[in-house]
């Protein structure tokens, strides 16, 4: 049992919207990155990313993608802001307590990047809305706290052939992986049913959310532009209590009923 080598992937966004002088000025520092050029920036500008929940994990994902110049974010998050959200949900502020979280997130992102197009959905992902929303996106970032939501989004993404960045956290630990339908195991291949011990509320620091959220955003940027080597078929596990980071080879190819059914229809 030895890990297999990682594989580079083609970009998942097309550069349909060319960049202008304002973009050149705004993104100058990232345009100095080797392997990332004006076509790469145009891919980000042209891209639509769906982020499921903009709470602890999704807030830094959305903020970093808005900062990097992704053109369109579809954000899904239900409910009103509570005090107990504020240690980690960085797109929320004290003055917004009792008001819709999704409105706070959209407001903060527009302050950062007024050119960003935002589709704000005041609902969480479910079987009822997943396919309709995911079909509009080039890529999905999963930052939901319940496996039921994650699996609904996974199944729709696999059927539609959309890549998913899976970010998750618990206590001082976090995991990150990328699902490429038809190529890597999907979430349901790994987790066929919601684990019974998992609960919606769990111990965590905002800094853990920020760490893995920023990594998830970087993974999304890599997938959209073809930069670097994403975690496709591999899972990064981190324990911030000990600062131990480990990459696991997820092994077998897609094998769950959802992957098999999607493969038959392609």
């Amino acid at each position, binding site marked *: *049992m*030895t*890990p297999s080598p990682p594989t580079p992937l083609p970009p998942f966004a097309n550069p349909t919207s060319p960049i202008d002088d304002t973009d050149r000025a705004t993104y100058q520092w990232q345009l100095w990155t080797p392997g990332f050029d004006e076509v790469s920036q145009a891919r980000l500008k042209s891209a639509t990313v769906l982020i*499921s*929940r903009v*709470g*602890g*994990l*999704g807030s830094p994902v959305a903020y970093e993608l808005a900062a990097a110049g992704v053109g369109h974010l579809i954000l899904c998050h239900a409910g009103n802001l509570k005090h107990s959200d504020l240690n980690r949900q960085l797109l929320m502020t004290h003055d917004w307590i009792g008001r819709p979280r999704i409105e706070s997130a959209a407001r903060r992102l527009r302050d950062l990047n007024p050119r960003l197009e935002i589709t704000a959905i005041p609902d969480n992902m479910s079987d009822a809305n997943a396919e309709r929303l995911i079909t509009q996106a080039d890529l999905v970032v*999963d*930052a*939901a*706290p*319940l*496996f039921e939501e*994650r699996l609904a989004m996974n199944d729709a993404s696999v059927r539609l052939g959309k890549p998913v960045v899976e*970010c*998750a*956290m*618990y*206590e001082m*630990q*976090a*995991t990150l992986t990328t699902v490429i339908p038809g190529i890597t195991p999907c979430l349901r291949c*790994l*987790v*066929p*049913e*919601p*684990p*019974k*011990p*998992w609960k919606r509320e*769990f111990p*965590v620091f905002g800094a853990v959310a920020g760490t893995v959220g920023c990594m998830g955003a970087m993974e999304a940027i890599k997938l959209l532009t073809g930069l670097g080597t994403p975690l496709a078929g591999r*899972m990064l*596990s981190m*324990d911030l209590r000990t600062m131990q980071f*480990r*990459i*696991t*080879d*997820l*092994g*077998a190819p897609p094998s769950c009923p959802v992957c098999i059914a999607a493969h038959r229809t392609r």
Partner: protein
Amino acid sequence: MRVSVEYMSLIRDASGVDAEDLISQTDSLTLADMLEHLAENHAEPFRAAVLDNSGTMHPWLMVTVNDVLVRSPEAILRDGDRVTIAVPISGG
């Protein structure tokens, strides 16, 4: 044989330790055997976290051997293998 076992997420909570070594008098061990041995050495919350009522590994349990995910309870472990056991996490 000696296998090093590391616990993550809710399995760490159930075991009460971060890691331990499992020592067996045999040359090899299946993953199912290892989980049963570990369950015998820990209090009930650990057994419930890794095995169902029939003693079968939970379908969602994530076990890696030498940094490769292993899904079959019949996978063979050998001396010196490094194992991690975790309940998948979904914190968002």
